[in-house]
């Protein structure tokens, strides 16, 4: 690979990694509070359609990101009501939100743009070049000549890390995910925390979806989330529920898919599926404890009811 090709490869890696990073950072926060939101995919596809509709309505990609985020929150609020507030099974509720999200967005898209579909000309979220940083050799343009949503992910990762591990609120949030009964006894409003983290996860997943539609594809297509919500959940595991590592893990997943496209474009005749599988194998290794210690929050996925 020449240096120019290396740069192109890194740029593609970041482009593919950013939506995963945004969704996975939100999921990290909700999982830290004991909520595993399998409905993330529903929030992402909702964010993609919400972003597309908003960008068209307001003729602004920036406002599209806002409406995309709102759509993500809307999808997550369904999950929050049933799985968090009413204590329904998180996996089943999340699956319902994902399937419902894929179906609803398809129905709305077809109602609005015709049953047989068309490519939309959306206002796109243009890349913004960061002065100086973008001039760093090799990695500069890949990391710092991206859509603004990418910078959101870069800023969120250390911010969320600091929040989780160095503030009292972060401690309370983690306590809710580890031992909700004890947290409640200590005066933490467990349900409120979980509702908030779930909606925050939906917000970021919605932005991830809006990024897909507005910064990447420039259009909406049914099912365009293509499993990214589930990949994001794997990214959280590989990143060991640590926002900074989660960002790196997302970029690694992005690099793995970028690599398979580049190798195929080079004309190498090998099974590209191996490269698709690679990040998952690493995630399994992380779960098995081969890549450092990975332990899920103790109360993850367990419905909780106030003991008061």
């Amino acid at each position, binding site marked *: 690979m020449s240096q120019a090709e290396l740069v*192109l490869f890194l740029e593609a890696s970041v482009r593919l990694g950013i939506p995963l990073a945004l969704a996975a950072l939100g999921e990290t926060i909700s999982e830290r509070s004991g909520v595993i939101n399998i409905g993330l995919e529903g929030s992402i596809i909702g964010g993609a359609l919400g972003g597309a509709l908003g960008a068209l309505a307001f003729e602004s990609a920036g406002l599209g990101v806002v409406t995309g985020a709102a759509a993500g929150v809307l999808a997550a609020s369904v999950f929050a009501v049933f799985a968090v507030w009413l204590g329904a099974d998180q996996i089943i509720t999340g699956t319902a939100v994902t399937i419902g999200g894929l179906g609803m967005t*398809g129905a709305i898209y*077809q109602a609005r743009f015709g049953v047989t579909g068309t490519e939309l000309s959306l206002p796109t979220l243009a890349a913004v070049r960061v002065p100086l940083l973008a001039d760093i050799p090799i990695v500069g343009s890949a990391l710092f000549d991206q859509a603004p949503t990418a910078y959101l992910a870069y800023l969120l990762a250390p911010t969320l890390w600091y929040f989780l591990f160095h503030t009292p609120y972060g401690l309370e949030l983690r306590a809710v995910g580890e031992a909700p009964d004890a947290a409640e006894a200590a005066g933490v409003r467990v349900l409120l925390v979980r509702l908030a983290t779930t909606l925050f996860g939906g917000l970021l997943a919605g932005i991830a979806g809006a990024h897909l539609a507005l910064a990447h594809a420039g259009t909406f*297509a049914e099912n365009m989330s*293509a499993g990214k919500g589930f990949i994001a959940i794997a990214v959280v595991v590989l990143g060991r529920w640590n926002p900074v590592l989660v960002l790196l893990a997302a970029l690694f997943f992005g690099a793995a898919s*970028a690599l398979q*496209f*580049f190798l195929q*474009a080079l004309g190498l005749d090998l099974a590209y599926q191996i490269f698709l599988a690679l990040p998952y194998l690493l995630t399994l290794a992380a779960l098995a404890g081969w890549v450092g210690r990975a332990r899920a929050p103790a109360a993850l996925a367990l419905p909780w009811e106030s003991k008061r």
Partner: protein
Amino acid sequence: MSRNVRTCLLSSLVALVGCGGSSASDDGSLRAALLTSGPVSDAGWYAGAYDGLLLIQDSLGATISHQQTATPAEFDEAFLAYASSGYDLIFAHGFEYQDAAVRAGSQFPDVTIVVSGGGRIADNVVPLIFRLEEGSYLAGMAAAAMSETGMVGMVGGVAIPPAQGTFRAFEAGARSIDPDIRVLETFTGDWNDVAAAKEATVAQLSRGADVIIHNVDAASFGVFQAVREAAADGRTVWAVGMNSDQNDVAPDVIIGSAVIRIPQAFLETARRWETGEVGGAPIYASIREGVIDFVFNPRLMDRVPSGIVERIAAARSDIRSGALTVPRVRFVEDEVGAP
């Protein structure tokens, strides 16, 4: 309360079944159904099938229904649902349905299942084979003529035989114009992942390819977007549409489309079914019937090098007459001497 809910559910279930039973056609008109495993809003493969279903409704007065199956686990359920509620003719629009179709076919001998791009045959399960390779070959000729770099690319979803066939033919068509042309091939593993298709296209464009054909569904929007962005950067690059006439989808960069006139093929199949001619053997739809073709984008004709339109027209009539055989991947069982 839970008991009330259950009773309620049960009664509505009975009501549903009742509805299904009573509406089964008593007037003897055709009841046709369509199964797709992707959204019909892809402006391509599935959209064409949906248009075909509507055409059958309009032309033959048929009662129609469409269902999108999400996972292979739902294939059997979907066949069961249609077969048991009185549908006569089920179009299962994709290679992936073939095994479930054979299972359903043996269970419901009165129902005819047509599997687009299928490979398995029974008395009441027939593959509808689109010779899209023929249109793809002509597209390859056009691509090679348009290419200034001597390199063209193909972006596919999953490497199933019908998709591989179109790529082999595209390559052969390109070489018939430029024997030294380089042809890149990428499969993304997903028919609808717009982002993946876009990055696969970006990678091919960055290698120097300047004409890209696709064989994906809704993900084709990603291919067109990547080509459009490269064109905006000042490169002379083109995309080729596939499955439906996609020239209007991205009219500024799509030089032409390898088309299947799926609605026409569906209607013809339904007509033949009504006269009892469908069963036990594959149905072939090719350039000869006018179902398959390559159509240039009329808005970009001034960019097309002189002479290539005539060469493509000549190749089209050679394919029609049998003088030119287009390479393809054989996947229909016991296929010998098929047209």
